[in-house]
């Protein structure tokens, strides 16, 4: 019987811990995987002991092996699998799991391991595992959603072996990087793994508290491999605080609840597993039920399309947004990320991300923006592009199960998009348009939804992973449009489909569009709409959302409406009177909002250049002087710089074309290997507040990328930052490359480990002791005199 069949037909038992067992047997601390070659007999005897205990899945001793840690990884893997196979002998009812543990590194953007590098590390192991005869891949003890996904993709793309994933949750029921069990269930089922669950961290008693979420939401067999509690030292020996009897008693409860596969982790020994087998072998196996719910997830949580309608923030889309277009063209991630943060704060449940502009590489940009957005917000993302290639790039690196926008009823679209959903997981917006266009009737649109669902089923994609958008057209050109869409929503709802709408399309061509949008949104919600793409800042849309959700009986006790109404301030009848601090005073006090307002006021009576010269520059000069005299401190300097940047933002919009961007540019980067960018960011905000255009390359930047930016932006002044001594060689390499390839380039360096001598040693042109120092160096380079 193959493993996939066995999962549904008999109770399977993983083995228990090896690390603690080896430490006890050998008396030394050594990474377990090193024992395959050093002490093969010990490994073999441990495997045999677990078989004798009644286990029928042997975990090969490969947990910590990867080619970065061990150049001889292939030999180590072959030895580990050979030992497991030798222990199994001729028994056909025993399966060998290749054990894929974490890399020990944090994936980008929070760490320095690129997603594809992680996939490649895991892939090398999986290929060896498959070649050496493993029966399944066990991905275990992962504490990070992104790393788990990298491992699953590596397993899927390099073998046909069944995949079992167990993550290490903490007592609070989350991975250390924030994901709850539902987020992991949603992502892993989307990726198509064979069984999921928990291992390590704590004993079976704690798993009993967490397992209900798995049993309620997962359609897969559940695995629990707990520790034997916490370690302690008794009479000079490490022991675990839960004994085999207590352990087995709780494992029995897990089996009775419906857990299919049982095993152990740290501190468990053959005695624990023998007792567990004895306690549970006669408990009938519960075959998991198919669960029908629609969901997407982020790296922390899942969003269910259930009772409460879901709001998808539409603001990251360049259509009709000149500032966003500019940000995308110049690679200004900061502006885009702020749009994401603001929408999250405004109550969006999901963020739409569309970066389609003809002048940029949409695939590369989408991948970069989606990754960056996930570092600043925990909301799931709707990946929005008409290009399947662009969708594929973003879906691959996305941490979680994305919402994908979109597929439609055209054969070409379905054949391009459905394989991506199958490969990477995702819930997809299905547009009711096909080769014949958009049907006029609700019945016609419903028929396209049925066609899409039928085609999806051919790819193994369930109806629950489709959200149908019946496409609202402008009511100004088609008076029936609103009615048809509302009827479509009712039909689709009755047919068991989830529905979505781009609500604002309805008002295209009309004045006061929010009036129409909000009325239509209310009607659509009352007709059963499940989610909408909308502007989360629009007060009328918020009003409609909370009122209609309450009216449609989807807001229990009207609690959400009452909370919203309590906080919703009535709109001011007139413009707030002016009379706050002057622009100059606002900058000096570090008040960004006041500075923005002050700039608007000042522009009523002065030209943009006058405002800069008479207000912003003197304010910065005063603040800078106080900072250098040490009568004002870095936090205040930064607040003033931020306020000045806010004011500049307002003034810049009024500058004549051509004068709006400074020709004085500075390229900034934190060097390769360094992921701390706070020093660089401080320099950036100060340079910007002094009117420089900063090309911020971010952190962990390769030397070649800095050179590329120098050439692309025709900018010859570069600032490099490093926090750790270990990353200074990368700084030196970058300086050398710039000097060799673009000799006119001047490089200033700074950071916690640098000093003037160190800077000279690596041949930097200048050392900036702090952010003000960097401004002085930039002034010197460009011949700027201030004050």
């Amino acid at each position, binding site marked *: 019987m193959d493993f996939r069949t066995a999962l549904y037909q008999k109770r399977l038992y993983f083995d228990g811990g090896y690390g603690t067992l080896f430490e006890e047997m050998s008396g030394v601390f050594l990474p377990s995987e090193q024992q395959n070659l050093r002490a093969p007999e010990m490994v073999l005897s441990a495997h045999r002991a677990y078989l004798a205990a009644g286990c029928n899945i042997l975990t090969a001793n490969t947990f910590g092996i990867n080619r970065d840690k061990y150049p001889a990884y292939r030999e180590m893997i072959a030895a580990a699998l050979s030992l497991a196979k030798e222990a199994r002998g001729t028994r056909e009812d025993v399966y060998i799991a290749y054990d894929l543990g974490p890399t020990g590194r944090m994936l980008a953007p*929070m760490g320095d391991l690129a997603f594809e590098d992680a996939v490649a590390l895991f892939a090398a192991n999986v290929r060896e595992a498959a070649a050496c005869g493993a029966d399944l891949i066990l991905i275990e003890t992962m504490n990070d959603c992104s790393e788990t996904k990298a491992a699953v993709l590596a397993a899927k793309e390099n073998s046909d072996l069944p995949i079992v994933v167990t993550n290490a949750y903490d007592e609070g029921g989350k991975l250390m990087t924030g994901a709850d069990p539902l987020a992991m269930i949603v992502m892993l089922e989307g990726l198509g793994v064979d069984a999921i669950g928990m291992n390590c961290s704590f004993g079976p008693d704690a798993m009993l508290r967490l397992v209900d979420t798995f049993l309620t939401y997962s359609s897969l067999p559940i695995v629990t491999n707990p520790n034997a509690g916490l370690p302690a030292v008794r009479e000079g020996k490490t022991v675990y605080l839960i004994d085999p009897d207590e352990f087995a008693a709780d494992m029995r409860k897990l089996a009775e609840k419906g857990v299919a596969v049982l095993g152990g982790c740290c501190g468990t020994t053959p005695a624990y597993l023998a007792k567990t087998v004895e306690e549970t072998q006669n408990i009938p196996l519960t075959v998991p039920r198919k669960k029908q719910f629609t969901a997407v997830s982020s790296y922390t949580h899942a969003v269910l399309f259930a009772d409460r309608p879901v709001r998808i923030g539409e603001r990251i889309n360049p259509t009709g947004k000149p500032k966003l277009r500019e940000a995308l063209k110049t690679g200004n991630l900061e502006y885009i990320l702020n749009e994401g943060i603001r929408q999250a704060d405004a109550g969006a449940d999901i963020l739409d991300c569309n970066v389609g502009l003809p002048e940029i590489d949409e695939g590369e940009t989408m991948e970069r923006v989606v990754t960056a957005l996930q570092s600043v917000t925990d909301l799931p993302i709707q990946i929005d592009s008409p290009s399947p290639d662009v969708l594929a790039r973003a879906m691959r690196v996305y941490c979680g199960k994305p919402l994908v926008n979109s597929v439609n009823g055209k054969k070409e679209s379905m054949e391009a998009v459905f394989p991506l959903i199958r490969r990477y997981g995702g819930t997809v917006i299905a547009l009711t348009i096909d080769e014949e266009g958009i049907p006029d009737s609700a019945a016609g649109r419903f028929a396209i939804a049925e066609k899409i669902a039928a085609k999806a089923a051919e790819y193994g994609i369930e109806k629950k992973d489709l959200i149908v958008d019946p496409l609202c057209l402008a009511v100004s050109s088609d008076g029936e449009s609103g009615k048809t869409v509302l009827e479509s929503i009712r039909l689709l709802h009755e047919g068991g489909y989830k529905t979505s709408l781009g609500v604002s399309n309805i008002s295209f061509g009309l004045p006061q569009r929010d009036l129409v949008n909000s009325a239509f949104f209310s009607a659509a919600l009352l007709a059963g709409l499940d989610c909408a793409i909308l502007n989360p800042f629009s007060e009328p849309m918020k009003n409609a959302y909370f009122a209609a959700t309450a009216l449609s009986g989807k807001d229990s006790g009207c609690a959400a409406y009452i909370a919203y109404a309590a906080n919703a301030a009535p709109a001011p009848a007139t413009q707030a009177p002016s009379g706050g601090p002057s622009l100059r005073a606002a900058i000096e006090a570090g008040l960004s909002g006041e500075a923005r307002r002050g700039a608007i006021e000042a522009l009523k009576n002065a030209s943009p250049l006058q405002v800069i010269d008479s207000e912003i520059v003197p304010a910065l000069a005063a603040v800078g002087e106080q900072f250098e005299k040490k009568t004002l401190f870095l*936090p205040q300097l930064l607040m003033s710089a931020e306020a000045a940047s806010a004011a500049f933002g307002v003034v810049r919009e009024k500058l004549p074309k051509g004068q709006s961007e400074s020709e004085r540019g500075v390229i900034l980067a934190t060097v390769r290997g360094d992921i701390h960018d706070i020093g660089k960011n401080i320099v950036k905000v100060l340079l910007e507040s002094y009117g420089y255009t900063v090309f911020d390359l971010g952190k962990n930047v390769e030397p070649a990328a800095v050179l590329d930016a120098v050439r692309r932006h025709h900018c010859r002044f570069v600032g490099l930052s490093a926090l750790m001594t270990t990353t200074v060689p990368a700084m030196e390499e970058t300086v050398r490359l710039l000097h060799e390839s673009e000799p006119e380039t001047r490089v200033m360096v700074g950071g916690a480990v640098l000093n003037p001598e160190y800077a000279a040693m690596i041949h930097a042109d200048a050392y900036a002791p702090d952010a003000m120092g960097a401004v002085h160096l930039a002034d010197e380079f460009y011949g700027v005199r201030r004050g």
Partner: protein
Amino acid sequence: MNVLAYFDGAIPVQHLFLDETEKAARLSVKNGFENAEIAACDEKLRTVIDARYTGVRVAIKHYEDGVDLGFGKIESCVLVKNLARCPEAFVFAVTLGHGVDRYLARLGAASPAAHFITDALASAYAEAACDLVSRKIAEGFSARPRVSLGYGDMPLAAQPALLAFIKADKRLHITIGESLLMSPAKSITAIMGVL
């Protein structure tokens, strides 16, 4: 195996108090300086701190030029001097958690000033957490001041082995990058001799 005891736990944020000198140094302000922005950043930061620790007490093997704390010999004059006459030592790690890193990343995009202030405060909180753990585990012992790898001639290269030895990788999910930076960034590993 030379492990004599294991310990781990969580530190409620209510138990964390900043040392004024440490806080001022991190913020680059004079001692006692406060303003509304710093107070606001502090209040928000405290909501995302998830401080935890894990570690062991070990018997030390002394060598002329180094010590072995259970994860291989560390050659270091500083450590030899610091642990002289100590038969045992605590080896432990403290972290403020990944949530703080995420929060800082968010501030990095939204407000450089808040980012700087919060980052400085978080560094001070990591030290405060480490001090708290040091006091707690040293109760009943006569302990030396704690030291960390990377200080003086103590090799930072031993950090991965230290983290694996105390299982900080599994228990706290502290990972280590190519340049030996820890993630979460606001994490500290420490060695504290017991006389």
